[in-house]
């Protein structure tokens, strides 16, 4: 294939390092070059759908929370539409960005997103995926951004028929992708980089 020969190689990844905040969330680290930190707010006005909070932390192989990580999430709105120029199926909620960026707390390691419960999005064969949020994690010691997905523990039926979840046989590993709602309505999603509870990471 001649096309194959002309293909370029993707730029190789390198770690975001411990000072990723300077470039991505400068206000968080006291540099007021930009008006706001991009991705700090996902709800830009009254939104359609169920408003939810997602909280969690990222743990290393010793069980210690990362204190220097940056987390980004990307998701559909409540109707399953993306706020993106590439969304061809209809107009998404104009008050919902779909994209959030959060540096973990430098003392506790906690991240927090105020968002909406995503609607269902089609899979490559046209069937519907279970509601999910794409998560991307970078930090010192992470050579290439880690990609995972947040699914919702209470979406039992949708999860059972989901094209990705249904291919994960190991029950414990599957559980690593489920956010659990606590008594305050907050969805907890902890990420484990190693160990018996290691989170499933994707190559998508």
């Amino acid at each position, binding site marked *: 294939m001649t096309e194959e020969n002309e293909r370029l190689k*993707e730029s190789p990844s390198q770690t975001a390092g411990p000072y990723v905040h300077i470039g991505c969330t400068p206000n968080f680290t006291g540099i007021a070059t930009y008006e706001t930190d991009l991705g700090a707010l996902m709800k830009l006005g009254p939104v359609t759908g169920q408003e939810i909070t997602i909280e969690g932390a990222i743990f290393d192989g010793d069980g210690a929370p990362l204190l220097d990580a940056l987390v980004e999430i990307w998701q559909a709105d409540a109707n399953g539409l993306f706020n993106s120029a590439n969304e061809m199926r209809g107009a998404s909620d104009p008050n919902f960005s779909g994209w959030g960026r959060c540096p973990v707390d430098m003392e506790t390691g906690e991240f927090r997103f105020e968002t909406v419960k995503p609607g269902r999005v089609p899979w490559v064969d046209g069937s519907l995926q279970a509601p999910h949020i794409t998560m991307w994690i970078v930090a010192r010691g992470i050579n290439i951004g880690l990609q995972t997905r947040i699914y919702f523990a209470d979406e039992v039926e949708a999860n059972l028929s989901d094209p990705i979840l249904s291919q994960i046989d190991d029950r414990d590993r599957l559980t690593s992708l489920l956010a659990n709602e606590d008594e305050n309505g907050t969805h907890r999603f902890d990420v484990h980089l190693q160990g018996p509870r290691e989170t499933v990471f994707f190559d998508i």
Partner: protein
Amino acid sequence: MNDAKAGGMFLPRDREWQPNALAPDYKSSIKRSPKSKLLSFPTSLSEETSPIFGHDILGEFDHDLIVNYAKQGESAIGPRLLVHGTVRDEMGRPVPNALIEVWQANAGGRYRHKNEGYLAPLDPNFGGCGRVITADDGTYEFRTIQPGPYPWPNGPNSWRPAHIHFSIFGHGFAQRLITQMYFEGDTLIPLCPIVGALGSQDAVDILTAHLDMGRTIPMDMCAYRFDIVLRGAKQTYFENRSEGL
């Protein structure tokens, strides 16, 4: 049917080419590298869409690190640089409207960050962050000062080569990338365990910017060229759009 629908729009990432999660000489990766194999799936709309940023988010000096933190009439200390390049995808197509965020140490190798303890001084006129959005032809440029190399707690005597950190958004979240730009001729490059996480000299070369005398501004600043390649789509969004009509 077309294979883009059957197999996802974006080409799979070449994981042999990209660095391993575990690079033992880079100590921080030891406890932060997942042990299980990544689960591979074709991209769906969740990764084929992305936030796309408009030029309206940019402030007047976001692209100029020499002055964007400096007091009125002053500028950052260090050799003045123009950094420029083109963002393309693996098919060679330019990527317009790609947001590039950069951050770096000052000329002495010191970052403006609460957790930074290197004894080199802060430059009161240098913040260290900037951002640009690529033009219709995928090109970008920003102005900065030459960052210094710096020591870091890895081995007993570890130094980072001079570098600029880059964060890049394409048109699909599958293309999301963070990397670092190095400078041609820097003798610290082959000694660095973070560079060493790259699997080949070709990969190191791609991240090494070259002096570009053609764009160097006489009596003002040297230019370095740094091209970026994001994951390629098997079809363009335009083709995708016309399909839906």
